[in-house]
């Protein structure tokens, strides 16, 4: 076996120094012959006879050489190298063809690779080990957007962890928020206690330091924390000396032991930035004390139904208190697949649309490739005919064609990879549609390389099959009979090229229509009236220390903050609001007098908020700034007014809110937070001093007079710190940005579709151009004769243009049908846009016609400007 490998290796090596070997063998052979001659002379022959005898005995030098070479190297490899050399030589001779071909295919392959690999990394690939076995504990939560909440409590989870047979591992996360002080600065953080398996289930690795060790979980109250990469960069400036530093979090001192790697990207329900070891305990008297988010990995072979059956026995709230039982009576805890809970990684219609669009683009590129090959074939017909006549076998010719096509496609694949390399990181970010992804570098991995290689081979196969089929059906002998001069291209070849061009125009047309519909949809989304202007508004969350969390001191702090910031330079208006529009909501189910329930949002606000939010008071009066009676007051929005009171006059009526009766004193306009929902959420507002609940956070909405800048934010933070040094200020959120990210998925879809359809359009038009140009240059003599016979140049011009338009027109008509058939699949991606939007179709057709004219213009000009005398002279 070893000898065999050795031999193969030697054979390959010998290819590389073929020349030296040949000359060496020449010398060896010469020695042989001389020695034989000398022996023969010694045996008594004369010189002439001796030489003849020596050569006869050898069996001829040429034959010996041939046999020697055959034994020495792979014959086929030698001939392949010969073919490749021939192909490269022909590229050098006609670089235009090679460049056009490689450029076209590289665009197709590159874009396809980039998009495939972006989709692959966002949704096709498993983000965590054993992703298909990961489930989430939760219960139904009617009224919320997903209808599901992934909250659970230790009293439910602990039995499952301790004796569940269906589970392999758990990722348990106990979420909390609070202030973190580094000594010099205080800020608000989301932290989470996590169990020992948390990071292994979620594939967490460190960039610095370490993760938790078993002994960290042994102590009753552990004091080590691990930071998320982004948090470390934002608040510690990416300082590598952070390991070992102490911070105060919620009055405990913790030591930072590790920083997670950038790639750590847990499902969105685990959003915390700081992690600490969690030891699960449950206190039956206060089961709600600690809410958990729990992911369970099922044991291999266990079905979701089996796991749920076990969970329903083990994790039902056993002898918990009545409140607990009441909460879970109608919505018991159960398991859902993680892939159903975390939609960001789900393969959606957007991804399907991208992949099919890029498939179209690739098809157009391949069609163009075939077309270019056909043009080349017809240009080289004479050469091929001569080769055949000189005894080249048809097989050899086909081998040359296939070699040419593969060489071209692999070169194109290589170039395509470089192209994909440049555009992909940026595409992945678009697809992930999140800031975290934007900050993460993405590399072109082996799957992308494999994909690029695969589709290069695929296009090579298709293109060479098409060209080989052409050559095998063509009667090459007749070419020579035609006289050798390419007077008129074969009708059949021309016809197949024309239909290919029409098909690629049709496909470009479909893509263009899809893009047009998406453009329209995004336009409509951008122009939705939200009833609220988010520009230059920021939301600031301020975490409070425990002592300031109850209603009284909190209101006092809020009031002082408002006063301090009211006249702050750069700030136009400031108000306190429990929830900021576009940045979260608090909701409640209210029972109407008739017994039915209404799901409404509520928001304790300071009176200044109505001005800040730009809401209009439609009826009644504004919220009072100070308590004015014993009973509570509220404002309701139009939507709540109509849903609660119908056509009745709401002012002066009262609504029971948690046991109290509040009077409706006014009606304000609606705010549309969820841009896609048809009707705004019913919502009521009440003065913040009326809110007696405990809360660990104050949120402010600031209406700025300038664009928010880092310096302004910094000075605002400092001002807040001056008013209340113990308060932790979080990174502000710009509402305009929030509003924009709501339609991110549409904008990014549009962007990618624009990219793909622009490239396809370009390729389709180039294809049309090349067919027209080629047919014109082959019919130059016809045009010359027509002009010589007195046809006006304009007529020739128009005849060429008409031919192109007929061709393009075919493409457009087929494309219209295609668009009609295919755009229905992106219907769900569109906002208030019909898939048959007449404006989009008209615009697309016009654009295509324009492009077709553009592609035919130069060939038509060339045909019309031919000089008959010079043309006839060359005959």
């Amino acid at each position, binding site marked *: 076996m070893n000898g065999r490998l050795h031999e193969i290796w030697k054979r390959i090596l010998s290819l590389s120094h073929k020349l030296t070997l040949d000359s060496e063998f020449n010398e*060896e052979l010469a*020695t*042989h012959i001389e*020695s034989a001659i000398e022996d023969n002379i010694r045996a008594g022959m004369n010189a002439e006879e001796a030489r003849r005898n020596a050569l006869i005995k*050898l069996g001829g030098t040429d034959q010996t050489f041939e046999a020697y070479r055959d*034994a*020495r190297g792979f014959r086929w490899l030698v001939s392949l190298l010969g073919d490749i050399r021939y192909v490269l030589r022909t590229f050098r001779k006609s670089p235009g063809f090679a460049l056009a071909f490689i450029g076209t295919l590289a665009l197709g392959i590159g874009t396809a690779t980039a998009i495939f690999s972006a989709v692959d990394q966002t949704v096709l690939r498993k983000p965590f080990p054993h992703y298909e076995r990961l489930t989430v504990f939760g219960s139904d939560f009617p009224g919320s957007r997903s209808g599901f909440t992934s909250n659970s409590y230790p009293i439910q989870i602990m039995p499952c962890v301790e004796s569940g047979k269906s589970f392999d591992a758990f990722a348990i996360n106990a979420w909390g928020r609070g202030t973190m002080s580094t000594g010099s600065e205080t800020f608000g953080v989301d932290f989470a206690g996590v169990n020992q398996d948390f990071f292994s289930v979620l594939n967490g690795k460190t960039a610095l330091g370490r993760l938790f060790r078993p002994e960290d979980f042994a102590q009753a109250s552990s004091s080590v924390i691990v930071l998320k990469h982004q948090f470390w960069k934002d608040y510690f400036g990416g300082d590598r000396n952070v390991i070992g530093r102490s911070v105060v979090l919620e009055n405990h001192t913790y030591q930072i032991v590790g920083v997670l790697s950038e790639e750590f990207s847990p499902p969105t329900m685990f959003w915390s930035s700081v992690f600490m070891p969690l030891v699960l305990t449950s206190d039956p008297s206060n089961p709600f004390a600690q809410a958990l988010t729990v992911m369970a990995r099922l044991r291999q072979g266990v079905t979701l139904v089996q796991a749920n059956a076990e969970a329903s026995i083990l994790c039902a709230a056993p002898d918990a208190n009545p409140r607990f039982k009441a909460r879970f009576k109608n919505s018991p805890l159960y398991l859902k697949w993680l892939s159903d809970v975390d939609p960001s990684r789900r393969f959606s219609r957007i991804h399907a649309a991208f992949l099919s669009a890029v498939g179209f683009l690739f098809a157009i590129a391949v069609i163009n490739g075939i077309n270019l090959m056909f043009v080349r074939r017809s240009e080289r017909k004479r050469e091929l005919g001569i080769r055949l006549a000189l005894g080249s076998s048809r097989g050899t010719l086909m081998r040359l064609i296939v070699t040419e096509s593969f060489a071209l496609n692999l070169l194109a694949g290589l170039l395509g990879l470089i192209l994909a390399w440049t555009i992909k990181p940026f595409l992945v970010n678009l697809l992930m549609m999140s800031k975290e992804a934007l900050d993460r570098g993405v590399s072109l991995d082996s799957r992308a390389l494999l994909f690029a290689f695969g589709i290069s081979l695929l296009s090579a196969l298709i293109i060479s099959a098409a060209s080989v089929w052409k050559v095998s059906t063509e009667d090459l002998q007749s070419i020579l009979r035609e006289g050798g001069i390419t007077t008129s291209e074969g009708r059949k070849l021309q016809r197949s090229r024309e239909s290919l061009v029409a098909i690629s125009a049709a496909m470009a047309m479909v893509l263009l229509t899809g893009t047009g519909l998406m453009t329209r949809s995004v336009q409509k989304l951008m122009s939705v009236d939200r009833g609220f202007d988010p520009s230059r508004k920021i939301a600031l969350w301020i975490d409070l220390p425990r002592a300031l969390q109850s209603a009284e001191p909190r209101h006092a702090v809020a009031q002082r903050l408002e006063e301090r910031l009211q006249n702050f330079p750069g700030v136009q208006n400031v108000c306190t609001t429990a929830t900021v529009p576009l940045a979260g909501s608090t909701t409640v189910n209210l029972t109407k007098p008739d017994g039915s329930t209404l799901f409404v949002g509520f928001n304790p606000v300071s009176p200044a908020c109505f001005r800040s939010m730009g809401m209009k008071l439609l009826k009644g009066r504004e919220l009072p700034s100070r308590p004015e009676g014993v009973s509570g007051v509220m404002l309701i929005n139009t939507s709540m007014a109509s849903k609660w009171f119908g056509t009745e006059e709401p002012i002066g009526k009262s609504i029971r809110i948690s046991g109290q009766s509040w009077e409706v004193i006014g009606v304000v306009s609606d705010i549309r937070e969820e841009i896609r929902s048809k009707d705004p959420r019913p919502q009521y507002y009440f003065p913040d001093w009326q809110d007696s609940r405990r809360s660990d956070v104050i949120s402010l909405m600031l209406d700025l007079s300038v664009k928010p800048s880092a310096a302004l934010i910094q000075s605002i933070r400092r001002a807040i710190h001056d008013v209340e040094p113990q308060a932790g200020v979080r990174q502000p959120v710009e509402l305009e940005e929030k509003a924009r990210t709501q339609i991110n998925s549409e904008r990014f879809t549009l962007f990618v579709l624009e990219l793909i359809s622009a490239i396809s359009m370009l390729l389709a038009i180039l294809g049309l151009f090349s067919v027209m140009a080629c047919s014109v240059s082959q019919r130059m003599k016809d045009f010359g004769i027509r002009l010589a016979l007195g046809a006006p140049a304009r007529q020739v011009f128009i005849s060429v243009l008409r031919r192109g338009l007929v061709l393009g027109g075919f493409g457009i008509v087929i494309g219209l049908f295609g668009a009609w058939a295919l755009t229905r699949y992106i219907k769900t991606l569109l906002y208030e846009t019909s898939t048959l939007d007449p404006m989009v179709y008209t615009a697309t057709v016009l654009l295509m016609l324009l492009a077709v004219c553009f592609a035919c213009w130069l060939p038509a000009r060339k045909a019309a400007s031919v000089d008959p005398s010079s043309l006839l002279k060359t005959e």
Partner: protein
Amino acid sequence: MNKQKLDLLQGTLDLLVLQTLASMGSLHGYGIARRIEQVSGDIVLLNQGTIYASLVRLQQRGWISARWGTSDNNRRAKYYSITRAGQRQLAEETANWERLSAVIGRVLSSSEGGVR
């Protein structure tokens, strides 16, 4: 020259070359060809050129090695010698050959009145 000459069986040339090198030590191509002819009493019909294909084959399999040297008539010549792997191979092939020829001999002698 009325002796009847024998055509070499396919694949046996390699064996002859190996055997020659094993018994003679280092030889150049012509030397090997001559030696085979002499040993066979000029019965073997050898196209001397085919020696070289065989030499390349054997060399690629690592059974013989080559180096440049000077011949008796003062020319540069390539000298071949058998390697250890070649000796192993030769032993194996020889055993094979003997078994095969014994079997063939038996078969031929058992069929009486065979074509002569």
